[in-house]
Protein backbone atom coordinates (compact mmCIF):
# COMPACT_ATOMS: atom_id res chain seq x y z
CA UNK A 1 0.00 0.00 0.00
CA UNK A 2 1.25 3.45 -0.80
CA UNK A 3 2.24 5.61 2.13
CA UNK A 4 -0.23 8.39 1.35
CA UNK A 5 -2.37 9.41 4.27
CA UNK A 6 -4.24 12.48 5.40
CA UNK A 7 -2.88 14.81 8.03
CA UNK A 8 -5.28 13.16 10.46
CA UNK A 9 -3.45 9.90 9.94
CA UNK A 10 -6.64 8.18 8.84
CA UNK A 11 -7.16 6.34 5.60
CA UNK A 12 -7.96 8.97 2.97
CA UNK A 13 -11.15 8.62 1.02
CA UNK A 14 -11.31 8.56 -2.74
CA UNK A 15 -12.15 12.22 -3.03
CA UNK A 16 -9.10 13.23 -1.02
CA UNK A 17 -6.88 10.92 -3.02
CA UNK A 18 -8.25 12.14 -6.33
CA UNK A 19 -7.83 15.73 -5.26
CA UNK A 20 -4.22 15.13 -4.22
CA UNK A 21 -3.50 13.18 -7.39
CA UNK A 22 -4.93 16.02 -9.45
CA UNK A 23 -2.35 18.28 -7.82
CA UNK A 24 0.34 15.92 -9.02
CA UNK A 25 0.75 13.73 -5.96
CA UNK A 26 1.94 10.46 -7.43
CA UNK A 27 1.62 8.63 -4.13
CA UNK A 28 -2.03 9.56 -3.95
CA UNK A 29 -2.58 8.15 -7.39
CA UNK A 30 -0.70 5.05 -6.35
CA UNK A 31 -3.04 4.68 -3.40
CA UNK A 32 -6.00 4.81 -5.77
CA UNK A 33 -4.29 2.28 -8.00
CA UNK A 34 -3.73 -0.11 -5.14
CA UNK A 35 -7.24 0.37 -3.86
CA UNK A 36 -8.88 -0.48 -7.17
CA UNK A 37 -6.51 -2.60 -9.20
CA UNK A 38 -7.98 -5.90 -8.04
CA UNK A 39 -11.50 -4.80 -8.71
CA UNK A 40 -10.54 -3.37 -12.06
CA UNK A 41 -8.84 -6.62 -12.91
CA UNK A 42 -11.91 -8.62 -11.87
CA UNK A 43 -14.08 -6.57 -14.18
CA UNK A 44 -11.59 -6.68 -17.05
CA UNK A 45 -11.16 -10.42 -16.67
CA UNK A 46 -14.89 -10.88 -16.38
CA UNK A 47 -15.31 -9.21 -19.75
CA UNK A 48 -12.20 -10.47 -21.54
CA UNK A 49 -11.77 -13.97 -20.11
CA UNK A 50 -8.03 -13.73 -20.63
CA UNK A 51 -5.54 -12.87 -17.93
CA UNK A 52 -2.95 -11.19 -20.18
CA UNK A 53 -5.56 -9.07 -21.91
CA UNK A 54 -7.10 -8.13 -18.58
CA UNK A 55 -3.67 -7.08 -17.25
CA UNK A 56 -3.11 -4.89 -20.31
CA UNK A 57 -6.50 -3.30 -19.98
CA UNK A 58 -6.06 -2.57 -16.28
CA UNK A 59 -2.70 -0.98 -16.89
CA UNK A 60 -4.01 1.09 -19.79
CA UNK A 61 -7.04 2.11 -17.74
CA UNK A 62 -4.92 3.54 -14.96
CA UNK A 63 -2.69 5.33 -17.43
CA UNK A 64 -5.74 6.83 -19.05
CA UNK A 65 -7.28 7.68 -15.70
CA UNK A 66 -4.10 9.49 -14.71
CA UNK A 67 -3.94 11.32 -18.00
CA UNK A 68 -7.48 12.63 -17.69
CA UNK A 69 -7.65 12.93 -13.94
CA UNK A 70 -7.72 16.71 -14.08
CA UNK A 71 -10.95 16.46 -16.05
CA UNK A 72 -12.60 14.23 -13.48
CA UNK A 73 -14.97 16.57 -11.69
CA UNK A 74 -16.28 14.17 -9.12
CA UNK A 75 -19.84 14.12 -10.42
CA UNK A 76 -19.62 10.34 -10.18
CA UNK A 77 -17.59 8.21 -7.83
CA UNK A 78 -14.02 7.52 -8.83
CA UNK A 79 -14.52 3.79 -9.16
CA UNK A 80 -17.56 4.24 -11.39
CA UNK A 81 -15.50 6.53 -13.57
CA UNK A 82 -12.60 4.08 -13.55
CA UNK A 83 -14.90 1.17 -14.34
CA UNK A 84 -16.21 3.03 -17.29
CA UNK A 85 -12.70 3.42 -18.62
CA UNK A 86 -12.00 -0.25 -17.96
CA UNK A 87 -15.20 -1.31 -19.69
CA UNK A 88 -14.56 0.82 -22.75
CA UNK A 89 -10.99 -0.39 -23.05
CA UNK A 90 -12.05 -4.00 -22.61
CA UNK A 91 -14.70 -3.72 -25.28
CA UNK A 92 -12.28 -1.92 -27.59
CA UNK A 93 -9.84 -4.73 -26.97
CA UNK A 94 -12.38 -7.33 -27.97
CA UNK A 95 -13.38 -5.45 -31.08
CA UNK A 96 -9.81 -4.93 -32.18
CA UNK A 97 -9.04 -8.57 -31.87
CA UNK A 98 -12.34 -9.56 -33.38
CA UNK A 99 -12.63 -12.20 -30.80
CA UNK A 100 -16.24 -11.87 -30.10
CA UNK A 101 -17.94 -15.19 -30.67
CA UNK A 102 -20.98 -15.13 -28.51
CA UNK A 103 -24.09 -13.59 -29.87
CA UNK A 104 -25.89 -11.18 -27.63
CA UNK A 105 -29.20 -12.13 -26.39
CA UNK A 106 -31.30 -9.22 -27.36
CA UNK A 107 -31.64 -6.34 -25.02
CA UNK A 108 -35.25 -5.94 -25.90
CA UNK A 109 -37.46 -4.66 -23.18
CA UNK A 110 -37.80 -7.03 -20.32
CA UNK A 111 -41.56 -7.10 -20.46
CA UNK A 112 -41.49 -8.52 -23.98
CA UNK A 113 -39.08 -11.27 -23.13
CA UNK A 114 -40.35 -12.23 -19.75
CA UNK A 115 -43.72 -13.06 -21.18
CA UNK A 116 -42.19 -16.11 -22.77
CA UNK A 117 -39.53 -16.82 -20.20
CA UNK A 118 -41.70 -17.20 -17.17
CA UNK A 119 -40.22 -19.70 -14.75
CA UNK A 120 -36.85 -19.35 -16.43
CA UNK A 121 -34.82 -19.08 -13.26
CA UNK A 122 -34.11 -22.58 -12.18
CA UNK A 123 -34.23 -23.97 -8.72
CA UNK A 124 -31.15 -24.68 -6.72
CA UNK A 125 -27.93 -25.67 -8.33
CA UNK A 126 -24.87 -27.39 -6.96
CA UNK A 127 -26.62 -28.89 -4.00
CA UNK A 128 -26.73 -25.58 -2.19
CA UNK A 129 -23.00 -25.30 -1.55
CA UNK A 130 -21.32 -23.07 -4.13
CA UNK A 131 -18.26 -22.50 -1.95
CA UNK A 132 -17.47 -26.18 -1.85
CA UNK A 133 -18.26 -26.58 -5.50
CA UNK A 134 -15.70 -23.92 -6.42
CA UNK A 135 -12.96 -26.10 -4.98
CA UNK A 136 -13.58 -28.46 -7.83
CA UNK A 137 -11.45 -27.56 -10.85
CA UNK A 138 -13.92 -29.09 -13.22
CA UNK A 139 -16.71 -26.96 -11.85
CA UNK A 140 -14.57 -23.85 -12.15
CA UNK A 141 -13.91 -24.77 -15.73
CA UNK A 142 -17.63 -25.12 -16.32
CA UNK A 143 -18.32 -21.73 -14.79
CA UNK A 144 -15.56 -20.26 -16.90
CA UNK A 145 -17.05 -21.80 -20.02
CA UNK A 146 -20.53 -20.63 -19.12
CA UNK A 147 -19.25 -17.09 -18.66
CA UNK A 148 -17.35 -17.28 -21.94
CA UNK A 149 -20.52 -18.19 -23.76
CA UNK A 150 -22.22 -15.02 -22.61
CA UNK A 151 -21.70 -11.82 -24.54
CA UNK A 152 -19.30 -9.30 -23.07
CA UNK A 153 -22.18 -7.02 -22.10
CA UNK A 154 -23.89 -9.78 -20.19
CA UNK A 155 -20.66 -10.82 -18.51
CA UNK A 156 -19.94 -7.25 -17.57
CA UNK A 157 -23.26 -6.69 -15.80
CA UNK A 158 -23.03 -10.05 -14.09
CA UNK A 159 -19.56 -9.30 -12.74
CA UNK A 160 -20.39 -5.74 -11.76
CA UNK A 161 -23.48 -6.88 -9.91
CA UNK A 162 -22.32 -10.13 -8.35
CA UNK A 163 -18.72 -9.25 -7.61
CA UNK A 164 -18.86 -5.52 -7.05
CA UNK A 165 -22.45 -5.13 -5.96
CA UNK A 166 -23.00 -2.11 -8.18
CA UNK A 167 -26.54 -0.78 -8.33
CA UNK A 168 -28.42 -0.72 -11.62
CA UNK A 169 -27.96 3.03 -11.68
CA UNK A 170 -24.19 2.72 -11.33
CA UNK A 171 -24.01 0.00 -13.95
CA UNK A 172 -26.05 2.11 -16.32
CA UNK A 173 -23.58 4.93 -15.80
CA UNK A 174 -20.60 2.66 -16.38
CA UNK A 175 -22.06 1.14 -19.52
CA UNK A 176 -23.70 4.25 -20.84
CA UNK A 177 -27.15 2.75 -21.19
CA UNK A 178 -30.50 2.82 -19.43
CA UNK A 179 -31.40 1.05 -16.21
CA UNK A 180 -33.94 -0.97 -18.18
CA UNK A 181 -31.19 -2.28 -20.43
CA UNK A 182 -29.11 -3.20 -17.41
CA UNK A 183 -32.06 -5.04 -15.91
CA UNK A 184 -32.65 -6.92 -19.13
CA UNK A 185 -28.99 -7.86 -19.56
CA UNK A 186 -28.71 -9.02 -15.98
CA UNK A 187 -31.87 -11.05 -16.17
CA UNK A 188 -30.77 -12.87 -19.30
CA UNK A 189 -27.19 -13.27 -18.13
CA UNK A 190 -28.37 -15.01 -14.99
CA UNK A 191 -30.89 -17.11 -16.78
CA UNK A 192 -28.35 -18.26 -19.34
CA UNK A 193 -25.75 -19.00 -16.71
CA UNK A 194 -28.25 -21.18 -14.90
CA UNK A 195 -29.19 -22.96 -18.09
CA UNK A 196 -25.56 -23.65 -18.87
CA UNK A 197 -24.84 -24.88 -15.38
CA UNK A 198 -27.85 -27.12 -15.17
CA UNK A 199 -25.82 -30.27 -15.45
CA UNK A 200 -24.02 -29.32 -12.27
CA UNK A 201 -27.18 -29.85 -10.30
CA UNK A 202 -26.71 -32.78 -8.03
CA UNK A 203 -30.03 -34.47 -8.58
CA UNK A 204 -32.23 -32.61 -11.02
CA UNK A 205 -35.83 -33.63 -10.73
CA UNK A 206 -37.78 -34.80 -13.80
CA UNK A 207 -40.03 -31.76 -13.30
CA UNK A 208 -37.01 -29.50 -13.44
CA UNK A 209 -35.68 -31.04 -16.61
CA UNK A 210 -39.11 -30.87 -18.18
CA UNK A 211 -39.39 -27.24 -17.18
CA UNK A 212 -36.03 -26.43 -18.71
CA UNK A 213 -36.89 -28.16 -21.95
CA UNK A 214 -40.12 -26.27 -22.13
CA UNK A 215 -38.47 -22.99 -21.24
CA UNK A 216 -35.71 -23.36 -23.80
CA UNK A 217 -38.09 -24.34 -26.54
CA UNK A 218 -40.18 -21.27 -25.84
CA UNK A 219 -37.34 -18.85 -25.26
CA UNK A 220 -35.08 -19.46 -28.25
CA UNK A 221 -37.12 -17.73 -30.98
CA UNK A 222 -37.56 -14.70 -28.81
CA UNK A 223 -33.88 -14.56 -27.87
CA UNK A 224 -32.86 -14.45 -31.48
CA UNK A 225 -35.12 -11.55 -32.28
CA UNK A 226 -33.54 -8.16 -32.66
CA UNK A 227 -34.41 -5.73 -29.99
CA UNK A 228 -33.66 -2.27 -28.94
CA UNK A 229 -33.20 -1.62 -25.24
CA UNK A 230 -29.65 -0.44 -25.53
Amino acid sequence: MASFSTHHGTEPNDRELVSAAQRGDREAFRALFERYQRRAYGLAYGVLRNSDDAMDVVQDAFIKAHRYLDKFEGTSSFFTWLYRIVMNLAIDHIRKRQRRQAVDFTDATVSEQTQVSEESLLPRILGGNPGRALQDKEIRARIELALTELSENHRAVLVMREVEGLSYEEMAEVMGCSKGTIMSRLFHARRNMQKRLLDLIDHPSPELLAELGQTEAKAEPDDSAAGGGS
Partner: protein
Amino acid sequence: MKQTPNIDLDLMLHLDGELDASEEGAVAARLEERGVRAKAEAMRELGELVRGHIELVTDDAEPRLATMWAEVAKRLDNEDGVAPPARAARASDEGGLWRALSGWIERYRGHLLSGALSAGVVAILLRPAAPGSEDRHVEGTTAVPATFVSAPPEIESLDVPNGTGSVLTIEDEDGAAAIVWVTPDDVEDI
Protein backbone atom coordinates in the same frame (compact mmCIF):
# COMPACT_ATOMS: atom_id res chain seq x y z
CA MET B 1 -38.72 -0.16 -11.39
CA LYS B 2 -41.35 -1.28 -13.77
CA GLN B 3 -44.17 -3.34 -12.36
CA THR B 4 -44.40 -6.70 -14.04
CA PRO B 5 -46.32 -9.82 -13.20
CA ASN B 6 -43.23 -11.94 -13.78
CA ILE B 7 -42.05 -13.36 -10.48
CA ASP B 8 -38.56 -14.14 -11.79
CA LEU B 9 -37.96 -10.53 -12.64
CA ASP B 10 -39.53 -9.26 -9.46
CA LEU B 11 -37.49 -11.73 -7.50
CA MET B 12 -34.30 -10.55 -9.17
CA LEU B 13 -35.13 -6.92 -8.46
CA HIS B 14 -35.97 -7.82 -4.88
CA LEU B 15 -32.70 -9.66 -4.33
CA ASP B 16 -30.75 -6.85 -5.97
CA GLY B 17 -32.45 -4.28 -3.77
CA GLU B 18 -33.93 -2.50 -6.76
CA LEU B 19 -37.62 -2.81 -5.97
CA ASP B 20 -39.63 0.13 -4.72
CA ALA B 21 -40.77 -0.16 -1.14
CA SER B 22 -44.35 -0.41 -2.36
CA GLU B 23 -43.48 -3.48 -4.42
CA GLU B 24 -41.42 -5.23 -1.79
CA GLY B 25 -44.40 -6.53 0.14
CA ALA B 26 -45.84 -8.49 -2.75
CA VAL B 27 -42.55 -10.22 -3.51
CA ALA B 28 -41.88 -10.92 0.13
CA ALA B 29 -45.26 -12.64 0.31
CA ARG B 30 -44.43 -14.78 -2.71
CA LEU B 31 -41.24 -15.90 -0.97
CA GLU B 32 -43.42 -17.95 1.31
CA GLU B 33 -43.98 -20.27 -1.63
CA ARG B 34 -41.54 -23.11 -1.80
CA GLY B 35 -40.85 -22.80 -5.51
CA VAL B 36 -40.21 -19.08 -5.32
CA ARG B 37 -37.93 -19.55 -2.34
CA ALA B 38 -35.95 -22.15 -4.29
CA LYS B 39 -35.53 -19.74 -7.15
CA ALA B 40 -34.29 -17.06 -4.81
CA GLU B 41 -31.81 -19.52 -3.39
CA ALA B 42 -30.66 -20.46 -6.88
CA MET B 43 -30.02 -16.84 -7.70
CA ARG B 44 -27.98 -16.39 -4.57
CA GLU B 45 -25.98 -19.50 -5.37
CA LEU B 46 -25.28 -18.31 -8.86
CA GLY B 47 -24.09 -15.01 -7.45
CA GLU B 48 -21.80 -16.81 -5.05
CA LEU B 49 -20.42 -18.95 -7.85
CA VAL B 50 -19.61 -15.99 -10.04
CA ARG B 51 -18.22 -13.98 -7.14
CA GLY B 52 -16.15 -16.87 -5.88
CA HIS B 53 -14.87 -17.68 -9.33
CA ILE B 54 -13.77 -14.13 -10.10
CA GLU B 55 -12.16 -13.86 -6.66
CA LEU B 56 -10.17 -17.01 -7.27
CA VAL B 57 -9.13 -15.84 -10.71
CA THR B 58 -8.03 -12.52 -9.24
CA ASP B 59 -6.12 -14.31 -6.50
CA ASP B 60 -4.29 -16.24 -9.22
CA ALA B 61 -3.32 -12.93 -10.81
CA GLU B 62 -2.16 -11.38 -7.54
CA PRO B 63 1.60 -11.84 -8.13
CA ARG B 64 1.37 -10.01 -11.43
CA LEU B 65 -0.91 -7.34 -10.01
CA ALA B 66 1.59 -6.74 -7.24
CA THR B 67 4.27 -5.76 -9.73
CA MET B 68 2.03 -3.73 -11.98
CA TRP B 69 2.57 -0.40 -10.26
CA ALA B 70 6.23 -0.29 -11.28
CA GLU B 71 5.17 -0.65 -14.89
CA VAL B 72 2.42 1.94 -14.54
CA ALA B 73 4.79 4.41 -12.87
CA LYS B 74 7.32 3.93 -15.65
CA ARG B 75 4.69 4.59 -18.28
CA LEU B 76 3.46 7.64 -16.42
CA ASP B 77 7.00 9.01 -16.36
CA ASN B 78 7.37 8.41 -20.07
CA GLU B 79 3.94 9.44 -21.19
CA ASP B 80 2.94 12.57 -19.37
CA GLY B 81 6.32 14.24 -19.37
CA VAL B 82 5.90 15.16 -15.75
CA ALA B 83 8.60 13.79 -13.52
CA PRO B 84 7.71 12.61 -10.04
CA PRO B 85 8.45 15.17 -7.34
CA ALA B 86 11.91 13.88 -6.48
CA ARG B 87 12.92 13.80 -10.10
CA ALA B 88 11.44 17.19 -10.77
CA ALA B 89 13.60 18.64 -8.04
CA ARG B 90 16.70 16.96 -9.49
CA ALA B 91 15.93 18.32 -12.93
CA SER B 92 15.78 21.80 -11.47
CA ASP B 93 19.06 21.33 -9.63
CA GLU B 94 20.70 20.25 -12.84
CA GLY B 95 19.85 23.60 -14.39
CA GLY B 96 17.23 22.02 -16.60
CA LEU B 97 15.40 25.28 -17.32
CA TRP B 98 15.04 24.38 -20.96
CA ARG B 99 13.85 20.90 -20.02
CA ALA B 100 11.30 22.34 -17.64
CA LEU B 101 10.15 24.79 -20.31
CA SER B 102 9.95 22.01 -22.87
CA GLY B 103 7.96 19.91 -20.47
CA TRP B 104 5.57 22.77 -19.86
CA ILE B 105 5.17 23.41 -23.57
CA GLU B 106 4.66 19.71 -24.16
CA ARG B 107 2.03 19.50 -21.47
CA TYR B 108 0.12 22.55 -22.64
CA ARG B 109 0.79 22.08 -26.32
CA GLY B 110 -2.89 21.71 -27.05
CA HIS B 111 -3.76 24.99 -25.37
CA LEU B 112 -0.90 26.82 -27.06
CA LEU B 113 -1.78 25.52 -30.50
CA SER B 114 -5.43 26.26 -29.93
CA GLY B 115 -4.64 29.83 -28.93
CA ALA B 116 -2.29 30.35 -31.82
CA LEU B 117 -4.76 28.96 -34.30
CA SER B 118 -7.58 31.10 -32.96
CA ALA B 119 -5.41 34.21 -33.07
CA GLY B 120 -4.36 33.44 -36.63
CA VAL B 121 -7.90 32.95 -37.83
CA VAL B 122 -9.09 36.12 -36.12
CA ALA B 123 -6.18 38.08 -37.60
CA ILE B 124 -6.99 36.89 -41.10
CA LEU B 125 -10.66 37.68 -40.70
CA LEU B 126 -10.07 41.15 -39.29
CA ARG B 127 -7.31 42.13 -41.66
CA PRO B 128 -9.52 43.66 -44.37
CA ALA B 129 -11.52 45.58 -41.82
CA ALA B 130 -8.57 47.16 -40.07
CA PRO B 131 -8.86 50.98 -40.24
CA GLY B 132 -6.31 52.68 -42.48
CA SER B 133 -4.80 49.44 -43.52
CA GLU B 134 -4.32 50.65 -47.06
CA ASP B 135 -2.34 53.77 -46.07
CA ARG B 136 -0.25 52.28 -43.35
CA HIS B 137 3.40 51.77 -44.08
CA VAL B 138 6.65 52.01 -42.23
CA GLU B 139 9.37 54.32 -43.46
CA GLY B 140 11.89 52.48 -45.52
CA THR B 141 9.45 49.85 -46.61
CA THR B 142 7.21 49.59 -49.60
CA ALA B 143 3.52 49.86 -49.03
CA VAL B 144 1.62 46.93 -50.42
CA PRO B 145 -2.09 47.30 -51.00
CA ALA B 146 -4.13 45.18 -48.66
CA THR B 147 -5.63 42.15 -50.26
CA PHE B 148 -9.04 41.03 -49.20
CA VAL B 149 -9.48 37.48 -48.22
CA SER B 150 -11.31 35.86 -51.07
CA ALA B 151 -13.43 33.65 -48.89
CA PRO B 152 -14.01 33.05 -45.20
CA PRO B 153 -12.36 29.96 -43.75
CA GLU B 154 -14.18 26.78 -44.47
CA ILE B 155 -14.63 24.58 -41.45
CA GLU B 156 -15.57 20.97 -41.81
CA SER B 157 -15.96 18.35 -39.15
CA LEU B 158 -13.81 15.27 -39.32
CA ASP B 159 -14.51 11.82 -37.90
CA VAL B 160 -11.63 10.65 -35.77
CA PRO B 161 -11.48 7.89 -33.19
CA ASN B 162 -11.79 9.03 -29.57
CA GLY B 163 -12.22 12.66 -30.40
CA THR B 164 -13.56 15.31 -32.69
CA GLY B 165 -11.78 16.86 -35.56
CA SER B 166 -12.10 19.94 -37.70
CA VAL B 167 -10.54 20.86 -41.01
CA LEU B 168 -10.09 24.57 -41.53
CA THR B 169 -9.37 25.66 -45.06
CA ILE B 170 -8.09 29.22 -45.24
CA GLU B 171 -7.66 30.92 -48.58
CA ASP B 172 -5.68 34.04 -49.27
CA GLU B 173 -3.68 35.50 -52.10
CA ASP B 174 -1.00 32.84 -51.71
CA GLY B 175 -3.44 30.01 -52.14
CA ALA B 176 -5.25 27.74 -49.72
CA ALA B 177 -3.98 26.22 -46.50
CA ALA B 178 -5.68 23.40 -44.66
CA ILE B 179 -5.36 22.98 -40.93
CA VAL B 180 -6.49 19.75 -39.30
CA TRP B 181 -7.43 20.20 -35.69
CA VAL B 182 -8.14 17.17 -33.46
CA THR B 183 -9.52 17.45 -29.95
CA PRO B 184 -9.54 14.32 -27.78
CA ASP B 185 -12.79 13.41 -26.12
CA ASP B 186 -13.28 14.57 -22.60
CA VAL B 187 -12.65 11.51 -20.50
CA GLU B 188 -15.75 12.25 -18.42
CA ASP B 189 -17.66 11.27 -21.52
CA ILE B 190 -15.77 8.09 -22.22
